[in-house]
């Protein structure tokens, strides 16, 4: 009995113990119409890790990216769409199932080009519908998947090469196989916890034959090692049951990373590229006997360069002598690997090369800067201009209108561009402000000056954007200084209180109060200065790789309190959190009271609070120690004590936190897998997924004029969450209401040129923020049944517009473009586009009235004119009166034409009924038609066959110009109006004349012939006609 009670007790408590909902579902239930805006840019694109072709449809191409997910082209590489938004965006391998290539695709997450900034994956995924829906199929701890091969004769049999963890030992690596379509996996080849599968191919003529290269490798934050005695090339001839090393002809000693490729047209021919101890032994090796023996062919720079970054070999599927290899520039050989030449000019760092399935002249190449197409066998290359997979390290914003976004990108320079641009944000809107790998870029708080940098502060630039002048300003060592240690991604900071101040951090904190012209060190070495972590010159293993990427024991984040310039926070990559309260005279390391944080964890970001100078947030990132937990803490006492602001629902290492500057409880957190939002100071978190991919968010900033959250993502460019102000107002009380209107951004009727952009349809264009008026409200429950209407009323309570409300549970945003009434226009032969112009509405107090079932909800809404308008209030009155006058004339003309049409139709009807009246009616009709022909176009089509414009067209044109005009009516427009009035008056007189002459007679004849007399509806009724 006790047992039963116990079970019952547990069963009853079960729902309460389970998290009521996960952060993603709660986010989907709250955020509703708040939708992220992905503005790219795509001009520099980003790193591509793998390209995969459909085996029979040359139009279908998949691209796996380093940090921007999987993209699919359905049109031969002209355009690509993202198909993997909801999952880990770091991609190792993509494989199309040859038995069901339209539907079944496998994606292995975790890029395998293991540079310092490489991300990590969370397993393998499969789609059964060409990428619409994906299911995770396991291998969650694999971190990096190098190869996936589906047996072409048995789709349930899949081989996966797992490279595995980069920063730690792991047993989840080697070759895995499933025989049940991914339900279960067995590890069929494992070497040890430091050696993973770097590449794998299957013999296309015999699915039992597999080749797999194994690589011993390890990274720390301060070193990289490629190679060891466990690296090897294996072959299996029994579907992976047994494996043998095939090293006959290989160099002796340790081996590094090896690529492996097989010639589809002759599977006996294999190529491998070998990293080994002696430079002379490195390079391309070929076997002509299916791996039984190997011969070295070439050790040119292009073949041996940086094996950890470039090891892909591709053989032309139709010609075993044509091979291409990834590298700094990419190489192609047409003599079986003996000699190579570079591929055509494109972004450097080539990771994958494919030949189109039917035509080897058509190639696609994946680089550090996007996908390139070639139509001539790699001689000339053309970038795919719509892959916004750019990898930002950092973003910042200025205060211009529209504001600009500044930031540096992995191997892709430093850029700035606008948050909005006519027609959308396109390639031409982005401007270079630095070269190399770009990192931080900070606008001067008040001047049109920006600071930017390249890796390791090799150069720090101060660019005067107005004068287009550059000055190099990085702090240089002076007498008595040790070597300055700069992080690959060196920190800089400006001051909210001293506009000309700039900070930079090496192992010391450097301060300049004259925009970088002079520098003073205001700290001792703030790092652990651990000699075992500062010998990066020896990094690389079998191939020295001294790029500066492993510089360690450096300052990584700097924050001056916006409330007190003497309070400065510094975080280091080796785990220190240093604070000074006296502008650098004394420093205190406050990294001791951080509950749950492993010692030495990289301090990635410190956010000094806007509300209290002793308050700060610190984010720590431990993935370079193999620790994938997120860490973020808050202190309110200058670091004496810290409390975690995260909850277990947050997934992925965290890199940045942003405190709102209005509501201290509103926090934004960027993690490896997206954006999280807390509205209660970190007690609980909601994941934001509306048009927001699960991308690594590296940096967050709030633009204070627009209240936009601007995110620098490492794989999907800049993503903006426009106007976060509704989130400041979310409280338990609001969430309990059936419907709640939020106060939101001011409703301003912007008056600007309407000319658009220049991008072609194959170029990415980032959307602009909406300029419409927004009505923002919360609904407790989605409205599905019954009526739900919304109207906008003016101050007098008259309906101005009826608008379709949003029905989602959560936040709804309904937009209105401030369009007033459109005049009813005379019916003619043609359509008048100008006649569809709405009248402008006056600024003033409006009211939103919602009718939901029997409930009515109202909300006051102030609408104002553009403060930058080119028109005075007085002139605006003239404009409004003139617009109204032409509006009324347009409708009067429509009514007049209606009367004419009714008369003409009556006469025609009569004539067809009684042909004997032809001689009476024909001249009458001619007179009426003659008048009509001066009022509306009566012939032709809606294009170049249209008849000459008449009064209706002239009026519509004037109305359109006045109504959408941004100035007071010009003298010429007013004179034109006078002329049109005169024409219209003459037409009215003419109609009266015709009526006087014919109406009585016509009606008499109609009645005589049992037809209805001409009946003209009153004006008000006429207006309601469709």
């Amino acid at each position, binding site marked *: 009995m006790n047992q039963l009670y116990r079970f019952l007790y547990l069963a009853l408590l079960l729902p309460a113990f389970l998290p009521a909902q996960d952060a993603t579902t709660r986010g989907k239930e709250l955020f509703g119409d708040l939708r992220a805006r992905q503005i790219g840019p795509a001009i520099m694109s980003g790193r591509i890790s793998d390209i995969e072709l459909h085996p029979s449809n040359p139009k279908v191409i998949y691209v796996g990216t380093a940090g921007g997910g999987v993209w699919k082209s359905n049109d031969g590489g002209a355009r690509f769409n993202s198909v993997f938004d909801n999952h880990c965006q770091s991609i190792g391998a993509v494989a199309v199932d040859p038995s069901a290539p339209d539907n079944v695709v496998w994606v292995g997450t975790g890029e395998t080009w293991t540079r310092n900034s490489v991300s990590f994956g969370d397993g393998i995924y499969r789609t059964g519908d060409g990428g619409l829906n994906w299911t995770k199929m396991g291998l969650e701890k694999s971190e990096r998947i190098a190869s996936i091969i589906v047996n072409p004769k048995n789709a349930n049999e899949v081989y996966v090469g797992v490279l595995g963890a980069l920063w730690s030992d792991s047993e989840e690596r080697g070759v895995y196989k499933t025989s049940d379509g991914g339900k279960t996996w067995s590890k069929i080849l494992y070497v040890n916890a430091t050696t993973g599968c770097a590449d794998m191919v299957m013999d296309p003529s015999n699915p039992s034959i597999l080749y797999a290269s194994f690589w011993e490798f390890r990274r720390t934050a301060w070193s990289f090692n490629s190679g060891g005695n466990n690296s090897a090339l294996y072959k299996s001839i029994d579907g992976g049951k047994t494996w043998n090393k095939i090293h006959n002809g290989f160099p002796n000693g340790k081996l590094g990373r090896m690529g492996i490729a097989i010639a589809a047209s002759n599977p006996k021919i294999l190529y491998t590229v070998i990293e080994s101890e002696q430079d002379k032994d490195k390079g391309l090796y070929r076997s002509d006997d299916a791996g039984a023996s190997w011969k070295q062919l070439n050790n040119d720079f292009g073949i041996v360069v940086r094996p950890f970054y470039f090891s892909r070999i591709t053989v032309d599927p139709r010609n075993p002598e044509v091979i291409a290899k990834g590298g700094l520039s990419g190489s192609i050989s047409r003599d079986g690997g003996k000699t190579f030449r570079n591929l055509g000019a494109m972004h450097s760092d080539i990771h994958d090369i494919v030949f189109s399935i039917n035509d080897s002249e058509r190639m696609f190449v994946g680089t550090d800067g996007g996908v390139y197409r070639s139509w001539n066998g790699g001689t000339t290359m053309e970038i795919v201009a719509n892959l916004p997979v750019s990898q930002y390290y950092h973003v910042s914003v200025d205060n211009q209108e529209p504001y600009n976004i500044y930031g540096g990108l992995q191997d892709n320079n430093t850029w700035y561009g606008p948050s909005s641009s006519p027609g959308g944000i396109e390639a031409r809107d982005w401007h270079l402000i630095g070269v190399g790998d770009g990192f931080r870029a900070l606008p001067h708080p008040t001047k049109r000056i920006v600071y930017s940098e390249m890796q390791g502060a090799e150069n720090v630039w101060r660019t005067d954007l107005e004068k287009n002048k550059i000055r190099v300003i990085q702090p240089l060592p002076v007498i008595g200084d040790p070597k300055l240690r700069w992080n690959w991604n060196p920190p800089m900071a400006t001051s909210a209180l001293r506009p000309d101040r700039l900070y930079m951090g090496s192992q010391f904190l450097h301060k300049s109060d004259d925009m970088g012209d002079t520098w003073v060190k205001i700290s001792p070495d703030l790092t652990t200065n651990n000699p075992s972590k500062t010998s990066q010159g020896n990094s690389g293993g079998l191939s020295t790789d001294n790029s500066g990427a492993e510089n360690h024991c450096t300052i990584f984040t700097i924050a001056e309190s916006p409330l007190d310039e003497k309070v400065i926070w510094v975080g280091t990559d080796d785990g220190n959190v240093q604070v000074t309260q006296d502008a650098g005279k004394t420093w205190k390391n406050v990294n001791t009271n951080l509950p749950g944080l492993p010692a030495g964890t990289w301090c990635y970001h410190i956010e000094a609070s806007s509300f209290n100078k002793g308050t700060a947030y610190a984010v720590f990132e431990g993935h370079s120690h193999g620790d994938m937990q997120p860490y973020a803490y808050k202190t309110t006492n200058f670091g004496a004590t810290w409390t975690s602001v995260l909850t277990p629902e947050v997934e992925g290492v965290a890199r940045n936190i942003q405190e709102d500057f209005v509501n201290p409880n509103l926090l934004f957190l960027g993690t490896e897998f997206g954006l999280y939002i807390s509205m209660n100071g970190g007690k609980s978190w909601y994941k934001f997924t509306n048009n927001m991919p699960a991308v690594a968010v590296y940096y967050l900033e709030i633009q204070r004029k627009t209240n936009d959250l601007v995110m620098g993502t490492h794989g999907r460019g800049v993503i903006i969450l426009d106007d976060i102000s509704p989130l400041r107002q979310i409280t338990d009380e609001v969430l309990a209401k059936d419907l709640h209107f939020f106060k939101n951004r001011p409703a301003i009727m912007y008056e600007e040129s309407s000319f658009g952009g220049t991008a072609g349809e194959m170029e990415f264009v980032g959307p602009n923020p909406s300029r419409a008026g927004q009505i923002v409200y919360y609904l407790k429950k989605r409205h*599905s049944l019954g009526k739900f209407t919304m109207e906008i009323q003016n101050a007098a309570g008259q309906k101005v517009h009826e608008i379709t409300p949003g029905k989602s549970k959560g936040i709804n945003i309904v937009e209105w473009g401030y369009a007033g009434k459109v005049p009813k226009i005379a019916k003619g032969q043609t359509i008048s586009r100008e006649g569809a112009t709405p009248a402008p509405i006056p600024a003033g107090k409006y009211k939103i009235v919602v009718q939901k079932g029997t409930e009515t909800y109202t909300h006051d809404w102030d609408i104002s004119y553009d403060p930058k308008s080119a028109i005075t209030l007085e002139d605006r009155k003239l404009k409004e009166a003139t617009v109204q006058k032409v509006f009324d004339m347009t409708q009067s003309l429509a009514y007049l034409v209606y009367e004419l049409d009714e008369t003409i139709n009556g006469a025609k009807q009569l004539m067809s009924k009684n042909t004997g009246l032809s001689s009476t009616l024909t001249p009458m009709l001619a007179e009426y038609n003659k008048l009509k022909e001066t009022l509306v176009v009566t012939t032709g089509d809606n294009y170049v066959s249209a008849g000459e414009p008449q009064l209706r067209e002239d009026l519509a044109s004037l109305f359109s110009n006045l109504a959408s005009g941004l100035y007071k009516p010009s003298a010429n427009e007013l004179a034109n109006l006078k002329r049109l009035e005169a024409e219209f008056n003459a037409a009215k007189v003419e109609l009266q004349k015709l009526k006087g002459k014919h109406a009585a007679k016509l009606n008499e004849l109609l009645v005589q012939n049992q037809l209805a007399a001409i009946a003209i509806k009153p004006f008000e009724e006429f207006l309601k006609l469709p």
Partner: protein
Amino acid sequence: MRILSLLLALAFTVSFGHAQTADEIINKYLTATGGVEKWQKLEGIKMSAKVNQGGMDIPLDIFNLKDGRQMTVVTFQGKSIKQGVYDGTTLWSTNFMTMKAEKSDAETTENFKTALGDFPDPFLNYSAKGYKVELVGKETVEGTETFKIKLTKKPVLVEGKSEENVSFYFFDAEEFIPIMVESEIKVGPAKGQISQITMSDYQEVNGLFFPFSLGQGVKGMGSQPITMTKIELNPQVDSKEFVFTEEK
């Protein structure tokens, strides 16, 4: 002991809920919206609707008949413009420049003919139509828990190749009515993007329930609302209105 069994029942209901199948959801939907019999008897629908374009309400009349004929009539500046008209043989629309009838391209017409029989609802006797349904799982859509049902209709031609014709219907898990339909766009510049149609304001018309408010858009972008002003069942409509007339 009575209390115990009550607790037991409660415990199971709360923690495990009731698993639904696609057929159960579809049956509940058809029942909730009027019942299979009523839907089967329906001969035609006329929907009078409006869309707002730049401040102007544009009226539409949409006809759908059981025999597959259909027509959308747009009224603009007093002129009627017909779009997506099918007369039993030809699919046609009015050209906006010449205001004359023009045939749709052969592939669009063929795909349209393949889909004949969808009236009044693709889920009605879906199996007899050769359609397949599958419950994919639960998903939160429009802030609401839904059942996601994959509907596979007869294959369509895309640039000459036969492709699977799949759409996903999201049924409100409480009300058992679809609130969103998603499908991949197969042709044109938006090819590969996801079309989304949302439905709300379900109201009764002579015993059958219809959504009176629709939103049409592309995933990740905005949506264009369409509001029904009136729905008429088994409308009277002159057959001549559907007929494609060749220019003499």
